[in-house]
């Protein structure tokens, strides 16, 4: 078998030649698709529907900055709240008191398993069960609470994994120096754990930015619109997609610098 393989290759293509042909075919398909798109699409209509320059200007000047601010503020507050609650939940999951572990597990599995939209809808109906319940700092309070509830469930698992990724010897060294369990956690374990958690926590921040597009269901009026609701209402009233494109670019304006920042931090660590 082994001896006959090189000779038999005379008829069939060698693996590298075959790979080269397949690659050439892939380029050919790509070029064909681009040419077809260029010839068949109505570029004037597409340009006018997606990138109408006048409408871009109008969108940017009439509420875009407010919407961008609301998206950023809802997300930032929700993330901070989620980080605090998530740390607490992670510590509960690692607790020696079994009921704390159970409670944290139930919370995490419940809110991770439900669509964020369902949680937000239920959240908006809470006053039905708790009459007179109103959250302060409208529109920020309700948005922060809703995003914090969902975010904390995701972040708790990330934080727990980060804490457990810190080698046991670190805690032993800290405890052998006389630190209490709490001091070792705060001074030694958590700083290292958060360092480990930066990439996954950033993913969760980006997810939360996108989830912030759903908080309108907790009952926000036009004055509290974030990017998605703003873009949608502008698109509807102008019968044009351009405002939604602008809103989408608004998201990228937040998420892209974030990704770059994290990549830098990872390179430095």
């Amino acid at each position, binding site marked *: 078998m082994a001896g006959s393989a090189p000779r038999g290759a005379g008829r069939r293509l060698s693996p590298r030649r075959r790979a080269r042909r397949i690659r050439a075919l892939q380029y050919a398909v790509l070029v064909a698709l681009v040419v077809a798109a260029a010839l068949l699409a109505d570029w004037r209509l597409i340009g006018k529907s997606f990138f109408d320059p006048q409408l871009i200007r109008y969108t940017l000047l009439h509420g875009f900055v407010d919407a961008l601010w609301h998206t950023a503020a809802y997300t930032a507050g929700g993330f901070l709240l989620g980080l605090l609650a998530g740390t607490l939940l992670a510590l509960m999951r690692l607790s020696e008191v079994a009921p704390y572990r159970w409670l944290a597990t139930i919370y995490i599995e419940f809110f991770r398993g439900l669509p964020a939209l369902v949680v937000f809808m239920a959240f908006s109906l809470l006053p039905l069960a708790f009459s007179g319940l109103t959250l302060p700092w409208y529109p920020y309070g309700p948005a922060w609470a809703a995003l914090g509830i969902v975010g904390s469930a995701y972040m708790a698992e990330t934080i727990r994994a980060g804490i457990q990724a810190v*080698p046991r*010897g*670190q805690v*032993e*060294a*800290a*405890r*052998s*120096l*006389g*630190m*209490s369990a709490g*001091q070792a956690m705060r*001074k*030694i374990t958590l*700083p*290292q754990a958060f*360092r480990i958690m930066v990439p996954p926590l950033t993913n969760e921040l980006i997810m939360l930015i996108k989830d912030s597009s759903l908080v309108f269901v907790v009952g926000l009026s036009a004055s509290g619109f974030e990017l998605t609701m703003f873009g949608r209402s502008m698109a509807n009233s102008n019968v044009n997609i351009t405002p939604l494109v602008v809103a989408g670019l608004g998201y990228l304006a937040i998420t892209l610098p974030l990704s770059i920042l994290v990549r830098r931090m990872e390179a430095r660590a």
Partner: protein
Amino acid sequence: MPATSEPLIATRDLHKWFGHNHVLQGIDFAVARGEVVCVIGPSGSGKSTLLRCLNLLERPQRGAVLFHGEDLVDPDCDIDAVRRHIGMVFQQFNLFPLHNALRNCTVALITVLGMKRAEAEHIARANLERVGLADKIDALPASLSGGQQQRVAIARALSMDPQLMLFDEPTSALDPELVGEVLAVMRKLAEAGMTMIVVTHEMTFARQVADRVVFMDDGGIVEQGPPEEVVGAPREQRTQDFLQRVLDPVHTG
């Protein structure tokens, strides 16, 4: 060895199980102030577990660990307070990777003892100097060699001004050419009168530095005494077999 004075640390009928594995089978063991004790024995003999029971990193299921006569196993004992007086050096160094050498030495002084930063740094500098690393105070652990890391770990433990130092195979993770610098620091420490319990495979160190060598096997102390007896002329067959394997590994199957 002042055998009559009250021991600094002692164990009484110490038992430890890991699952069904009876790792320590009733250890009675005492170390006097100023004594240097080397614990030797095959892997799995329980020597590291015994050492880790002495500052309660492992919790024994039965028996007592007495430090100045106070039982550390007793739930009423403030173990954090006791550990301030018992330094520990680990096989894997366990330096805090985000802190430089100086911060590694000061973090406990500041956190545990509530010391002012300047005072803590003064103490840390003195101890880093003592282990020959005065020029490395700003270095992060990752930028240090294994031998330097272990010396920082010793300085970190010494900064708490302990009455007793525990060494858990301090040179086992080191490249052979780096073992000497760590042993030299430990020898200096012993000569300065520090009470030390050293779990080790370094027979030369045991022979030259130890006041007493303890040979453990199968969760018990098989024999103990001055190094010239236990290492030089062991009485027990098991000790002889072990030393044969350690000192002449090429000729034992």
